């Protein structure tokens, strides 16, 4: 059956400029199939990735919408004319609390004290009084009051985000102070959430700080997020990152994402309603143990300051509605090269959480999803000694080799007098430096890597290799406090 399909003007480029194409088929669906077979470039503009006709594309058979006939199964007769007619749809990005407050009159007013505090914002047309009142109406939740949470908390509070929630359950540690600028020495040992609340209330008394001293998990995330307009991800682990993403997608909220490692950082806005989500970018977490945490791999102190500030910038733009938000774009920052790169991100049409046909419609067990930590390597108790025991052996003058398998950087921080450094990755190649007949006491920071070394050495015939339980950390605590802990 030969029928004519009328091609809309903008799509004629894909049909060799033909306004009409003669095709064969017994039904509307078959005729359309023949059309895209003849002109494959049309396919993506008429059909979505799942093979269904795009929602805005309508087919008219002799001036009648086939939706009112038998849809794509509508039979056609020779000489019929089929027209492709778009319905035109579109619109602005999503609906959040401050956006629904469209009538500027319904936004909260600024007091004279607030006007003084925010004057440098108010005189810019991109923010102005209307933008500042949107900020005051906005509710932002930051996950984590650590490296990223510090600049986020400081800048969002300073900028006048009216309700600023923070989730954290950790305690301030001395090793936090090189990057977590929310805290000072007087905060060491205090719960982060309390120290942060005090600091931010001092910075801006006009806003409401809402401390949530809880461990975020699948049981409380939806409840916690529900009251907020924007969620900011300042977490340092994969289970929480996926949890934050999925909860935001399920609630339709933007997730302003940032992550840091050593000298590199990433920033984006994941917003399932407007663009891709974290799962579109990383459908699966990396195998457990593959990507080290900052505690294991280290991080440049200023890096979270840079990345967290970029996140704060995106949060403020989202609320005020200024500029181009970082939706569908991933910014990569390299502090050593001092280079920013930008990657375009696409929404994954088969994304399990944010696509049109999600396979996951609730939160899951994210610890399980990301895999449990790699099984801790242990050695038999008989092949292990304690720090005081090692001290006694050394004092007796027993002949033994103290083998340190840590990284050279760790060696530079502290070491046990008279020990030999062979970093674990080099051990296989440098076995010749060790005497198979001697007693070898292997040590690392806390006893894990050295246990791996002992098991390897014993396999290789070093039958007198033993492990220092608790590593140099135990040595410092139990034997020699002059050895610094790190």
């Amino acid at each position, binding site marked *: 059956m030969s029928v004519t399909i009328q091609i809309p003007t903008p799509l004629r*480029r894909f049909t060799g400029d033909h306004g009409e194409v003669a095709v064969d088929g017994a039904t509307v669906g078959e005729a359309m199939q023949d059309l895209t077979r003849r002109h494959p470039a049309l396919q993506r503009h008429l059909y979505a990735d799942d093979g269904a006709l795009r*929602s805005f594309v309508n087919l008219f058979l002799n001036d009648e919408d086939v939706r009112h006939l038998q849809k794509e199964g509508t039979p056609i007769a020779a000489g019929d004319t089929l027209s492709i007619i*778009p319905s*035109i749809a579109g*619109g*602005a990005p999503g609906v959040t609390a401050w956006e629904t407050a469209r009538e500027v009159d319904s936004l909260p007013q600024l007091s004279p004290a607030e006007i003084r505090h925010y004057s440098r914002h108010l005189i810019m047309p991109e923010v102005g009084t209307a933008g500042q009142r949107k900020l005051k109406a906005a509710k932002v939740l930051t996950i984590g009051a650590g490296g990223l949470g510090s600049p986020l908390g400081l800048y969002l509070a300073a900028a006048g985000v009216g309700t600023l929630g923070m989730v954290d359950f950790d305690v301030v540690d001395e090793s936090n102070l090189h990057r977590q600028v929310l805290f000072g020495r007087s905060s060491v040992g205090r719960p982060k959430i309390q120290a942060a609340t005090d600091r931010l209330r001092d910075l801006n008394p006009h806003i409401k700080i809402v401390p949530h001293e809880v461990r975020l998990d699948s049981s409380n995330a939806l409840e916690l997020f529900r009251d907020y307009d924007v969620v900011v991800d300042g977490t340092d682990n994969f289970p929480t990152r996926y949890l934050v993403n999925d909860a935001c997608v399920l609630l339709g909220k933007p997730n302003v994402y940032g992550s840091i490692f050593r000298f590199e950082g990433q920033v984006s806005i994941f917003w399932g309603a407007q663009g891709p989500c974290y799962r579109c970018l990383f459908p699966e977490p990396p195998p457990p143990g593959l990507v080290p945490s900052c505690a294991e791999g280290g991080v440049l102190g200023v890096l979270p300051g840079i990345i967290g500030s970029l996140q704060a910038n995106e949060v403020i733009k989202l609320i005020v509605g200024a*500029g181009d938000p970082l939706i569908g774009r991933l910014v990569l920052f390299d502090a050593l090269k001092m280079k920013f790169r930008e990657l375009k991100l696409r929404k994954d049409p088969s994304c399990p959480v944010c696509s049109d046909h999600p396979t996951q419609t609730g939160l899951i067990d994210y610890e399980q999803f990301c895999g449990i930590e790699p099984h801790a390597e242990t050695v038999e108790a008989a092949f292990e000694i304690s720090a005081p025991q090692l001290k006694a052996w050394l004092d007796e003058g027993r002949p033994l080799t103290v083998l340190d398998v840590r990284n050279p950087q760790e060696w530079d921080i502290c070491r046990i007098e008279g020990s030999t450094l062979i970093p674990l990755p080099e051990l296989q190649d440098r076995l010749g430096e060790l005497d198979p007949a001697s007693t070898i006491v292997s040590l690392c920071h806390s006893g894990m890597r050295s246990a791996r070394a002992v098991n390897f050495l014993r396999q290789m015939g070093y039958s007198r290799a033993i492990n220092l339980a608790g590593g140099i950390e135990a040595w410092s605590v139990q034997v020699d406090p002059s050895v610094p802990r790190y």
Partner: protein
Amino acid sequence: MFTLEITAGDLQAVREHAAASYPEECCGFLIGRFNAATALTAVVRVLPVSNERQESRHNRYLISPETVLAANKEARALGLDVAGYYHSHPDHPARPSEFDRDHAWPGLSYVIVSVAGGRVADTRSWRLSDDRERFEEEEMFQKEAAS
């Protein structure tokens, strides 16, 4: 680089339509001619229509296929085409949303008017790339009415 040529009067009509519809979205047709050789779209007249959405009119608009058919006929009667559409983003930047991208075709101009607090803040025009990956901004050129 693509260019959209529109008279000051037509552009003013689009902007006034956007401001008057605030806080809801407005929409309409750009009737004119696209010249592939010069990558120039000349808008000859604008055709405002009503937003046919029943809900979420503050951030969604809809023009039914019947209205599109009527606009096509009107354009053809003038020897012209529907060269694009315009719509407004109340309290949002004049850049296309992901929703806009999902509902667009290449080969057309998509003019977006940003209206902030009832006043027109920005007007920009966009074209969908052939691979549907992104919108690319086109230059807007305002010309005085020829007649």
